[in-house]
């Protein structure tokens, strides 16, 4: 898998999420974060991975990489993801609404994309990405937030932390 592909798709993903960020921030209710209980449409939603790239085959759904989506509403929840077993670019999306939540995300290999949204106080994220061309986008809304990001290689990171 070419790292360039992931860099391109990752950049598009970042752009999409940056645009989507305000919407997510506005929609900090449970409904906006949790939506329907039926996850299948979201899992099959190709628009999440689409961007400005003219080569559709360069985007996530056409790659062999894995995709994980975790949505949690409430307090004291833990989301732990470990991606990289296949050596392809992985996509991870975590959305937590509530307090005292924790995200632990570890991505290995190249071309990974991770997006984390936490809405609530005292939430913590611990992100590790290794390899080239990784992208991490993070939105935290609340007080007493904590974030730890470790990236190796040509990585990109976008972090937004705002008060409640």
């Amino acid at each position, binding site marked *: 898998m070419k790292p360039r592909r992931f860099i391109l798709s990752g950049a598009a993903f970042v752009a999409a999420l940056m645009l989507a960020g305000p919407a997510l921030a506005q929609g900090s209710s449970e409904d906006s974060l949790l939506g329907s209980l039926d996850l299948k449409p979201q*899992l099959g939603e190709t628009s999440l991975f689409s961007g400005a790239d003219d080569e559709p085959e360069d985007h996530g759904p056409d790659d062999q990489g894995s995709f994980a989506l*975790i949505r949690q509403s409430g307090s004291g929840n833990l989301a732990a993801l470990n991606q990289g077993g296949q050596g392809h670019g992985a996509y991870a999306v975590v959305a937590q609404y509530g307090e005292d939540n924790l995200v632990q995300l570890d991505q290995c290999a190249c071309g990974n994309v991770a997006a984390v949204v936490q809405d609530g106080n005292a939430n913590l994220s611990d992100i590790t990405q290794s390899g080239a061309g990784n992208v991490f986008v993070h939105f935290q809304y609340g007080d007493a937030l904590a974030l730890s990001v470790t990236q190796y290689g040509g990585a990109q990171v976008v972090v937004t932390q705002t008060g409640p």
Partner: protein
Amino acid sequence: MKRYLILAASLSVLGFASAQAQVFPSPTHDNSASITQTGNLNDARINQAVNNIYNGQGNAEIIQSNSRGIATITQTNATSAVAGGFDNTASIDQRRNRDTATIDQIHDYASTRDNRATILQVAANANATIQQRGDKNTAAIRQVAGSVTPTASIQQNGLSNTANVRQEGVNSLVTVRQGTYSDQVGLSQDTTGSRVDVLSQGLNADIFVSQVGFTHTADITEDGANGTITVSMDGARNDVLVTQNSTDGIIDIVSTGTSARNDVTVTQELTDAGSTARVTQSGTFGTAVITQLDNQAGGGGNLAEVTQTGVGVALADILSTITQNGGLNEAFVTQAGDYAQSGILQTGVGHTATVSQ
């Protein structure tokens, strides 16, 4: 074959046996046998293929109204084909304690013919066994209100068979196996297109279903607490749907290494708490959907665990979704193949979601 000139008793109980009602003697001059026994410790046996020599369609019926009865019906033509079309019908009706019913049917010769076996037991400590080989067979076991510790076993081999079990007693045991029954010499086709339907409504049910072959469906519903459901699939394009409407259930569904494109849907809801759902899929492709919900008391403490090690070649070939509410739920997903997708949705407090890809 000696014909018994005993008119069939009504089998209209619960509307179940009426569909299986037979006419004795047979108006079409088939083999027909009907035995009615009252009193305890009776033993009734009907064999319509002595030494495997068959000369026509068989109808058999045994009715026992007292305790500790034994009823056995054998209809088999494993080595003696009969020209023309025919099918067999067997039914056993038992109404007291510690009754045992057994039906064996083998008919290998044409997919357009079918065997039908029915056992109705309204009894404590009842045991029912049906074994069928051939195509388009139907096996039905009803162990209804009043049953205590009932045991139901069905084995089938062939094409487009149906196994149907309904239990209402407590501490019940159900075993259904499709695709592994052989019995005597003779043809035994691979199993495909078969269906298992199980409805258990008592406490502490133990249900085991095994399907070997292709395009099967297993639909299991269990409404009592502390139920255990185990499903094993070996084949391709099989579907499993398991529903538990209670608490403290355990569901374990396994697709073995040669399986492909098997889909699993597990629903533990209404008042789910303290339940476990495990799905293990290997082979090629696979979909697992687990829902654990308590919409009445806001329970929790459930465990959902999905392990998918199969191969994927396109988007969502390996797919897992887990939905949980309440508190202190745990979701574990391990996916080792390409094109794996995982979705976890948790609402409530103190949940853990762990994904390894």
